[in-house]
């Protein structure tokens, strides 16, 4: 048992930092996909194909929703089946605010008067704060459980909120709520499809950058250990529960902001944004792209939205094909699409 290999002696303990990860094939694939997402709508816009600009916007938004969920599932090991609650809440914040701004009625008249607004910066802030509060409540309770119970309880919470929205006539109930005029970003024309795309794309890049940075921090190290070996984390003196809870909240905030953008893209928010189908869809995107890979949601969302658009136009049975692909990914390509494109599984 000789442990002193050649070279071990001239390494000063303590002086060498952990080597920086090399730029790998995966990084190139990530940037290529991101570049594609940025360039395609620009070209489409130049050709006057607004439809494809909006399609790219949709991909960017759905990717962002999945980036949020990936933080919970992929990095935190928390399999939430209720992220539609945050996606929908973000959407409703945008919708309700626009509704009151249009009507010129207050959102709240008691205890304080809160007027509606069509300022996106305010709407996003409110959407993120609302999602943070909701996630704090849902997470605080759900994270007492784990495994299948966690999946079911997050689903149950989301369903509660879904039925609440359906049965609340003020904001359209089952019919949903139209956003007649897209909410405004100071200094930009959000009605221009390419401008709105760029806003969504910027938000996505920000979400990716924040997630990447977060996962390299102390918080990320603790979250990773909470997923890999909870006992080790606790034995090191770090309680897993608060770490998970904070990660769950951040995850919800990202997904919620995506929801707010989605409502503005569609000019409509309805209970379908809160439904369990939506939770499932976001989860499918995470799995398709490769769980716990930073850019996995991007390839997952591209595949998902393109299939939905192309196959969905051809056959009503496109979900069957989606199911088959999903089955294939789960059985043969554990790393998801990113695993296929970038080779070997993620290494930590």
């Amino acid at each position, binding site marked *: 048992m000789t442990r002193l290999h050649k070279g071990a002696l001239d390494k000063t303990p303590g002086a060498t930092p*952990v080597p920086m990860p090399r730029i790998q094939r995966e990084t190139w694939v990530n940037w290529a996909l991101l570049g594609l997402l940025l360039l395609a709508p620009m070209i489409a816009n130049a050709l006057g194909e607004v439809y494809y600009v909006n399609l790219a916007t949709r991909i960017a938004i759905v990717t962002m929703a999945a980036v949020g969920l990936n933080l919970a599932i992929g990095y935190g090991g928390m399999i939430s089946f209720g992220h539609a609650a945050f996606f929908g809440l973000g959407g409703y914040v945008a919708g309700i605010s626009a509704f009151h701004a249009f009507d010129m009625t207050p959102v709240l008249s008691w205890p304080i008067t809160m007027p509606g607004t069509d300022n996106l910066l305010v709407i996003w802030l409110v959407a993120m704060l609302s999602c943070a509060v909701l996630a704090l409540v849902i997470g605080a309770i759900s994270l007492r459980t784990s495994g299948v119970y966690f999946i079911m309880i997050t689903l149950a919470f989301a369903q509660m909120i879904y039925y609440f929205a359906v049965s609340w006539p003020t904001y359209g109930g089952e019919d949903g709520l139209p956003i007649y005029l897209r909410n405004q970003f100071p200094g930009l024309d959000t009605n221009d499809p390419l401008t709105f795309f760029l806003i969504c794309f910027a938000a996505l890049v920000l979400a990716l950058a924040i997630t990447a940075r977060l996962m*390299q*921090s102390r918080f990320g*190290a603790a979250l990773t250990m909470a997923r*890999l070996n909870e006992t080790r984390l606790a*034995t090191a*003196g770090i309680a897993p529960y608060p770490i998970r809870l904070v990660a769950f909240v951040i995850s919800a905030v990202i997904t919620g902001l995506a929801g707010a953008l989605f409502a503005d893209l569609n000019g409509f928010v309805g209970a379908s944004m809160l439904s369990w189908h939506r939770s499932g869809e976001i989860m499918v995107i995470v799995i398709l792209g490769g769980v716990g890979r930073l850019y996995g949601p991007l390839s997952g969302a591209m595949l998902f939205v393109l299939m939905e658009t192309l196959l969905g136009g051809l056959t009503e049975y496109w979900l069957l094909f989606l199911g088959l692909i999903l089955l294939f990914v789960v059985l043969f390509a554990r790393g998801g699409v990113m695993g296929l494109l970038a080779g070997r599984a993620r290494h930590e």
Partner: protein
Amino acid sequence: MSDAVLTLSHLHKSFGALQATHDVSLDLKAGEIHALIGPNGAGKSTLIGQITGHLMPDRGEVRLAGENITALSVAQRARRGLGRSFQVSSLADSLSVLRNVMIAVQGLQGHSFHFWKPVHRDASLVEPARAAIARMQLESRAETPVSELSHGERRQVEVACALALKPRALLLDEPMAGLGPEGSARLTELLEELKHEVPILLIEHDMDAVFRLADRISVLVAGQVIAHGVSDEIRANPLVREAYLGD
């Protein structure tokens, strides 16, 4: 016993009908190695679990530096200064040795809600972790994923994690197993040196190491302490010879 760092009084623990711990009282004093020996299934690991909070005793009390910690969680006890190694190593297999040990340093420093600074560039985490790894003579394995280590090496990583916590009491569950004679000898030396920094409760089947290292020995059989004393007393004790040393 004013100088006891760790005191267990009247601990009881059952798993269904099985009495895994039956009225166990013992203590760990500053500067000593207290060995806990006993046959397989005697309840040694179960006892460590109750000290560190991985298991809750049915009755009894655990005190660390005078404070009653019986109701505290694993993480709270670790922060108060309990470091342990597991008999069956409990590490993150896909992470490097360094990353595993760094978590302990992070726990010691007590701030995990830092969201921005990358840990791999944080010398205040990396350097103490490397020092603990060096102490276990695992420098050459620092970047290796734990999954590629031998069982013996994994246990050493466990010890490195415990050391990185700068504990007030160190609880080691069979740290020599799987090390081979050379590795055992080296670890024996290290523990001898270490006990002056932190008292050690040592579970070990390697009797040579136990008799060489231990200032005191407690013998656990079927959940009960059947003998307790300094090494020579235990070696001579007829009950122990019969129940445990097998003659």
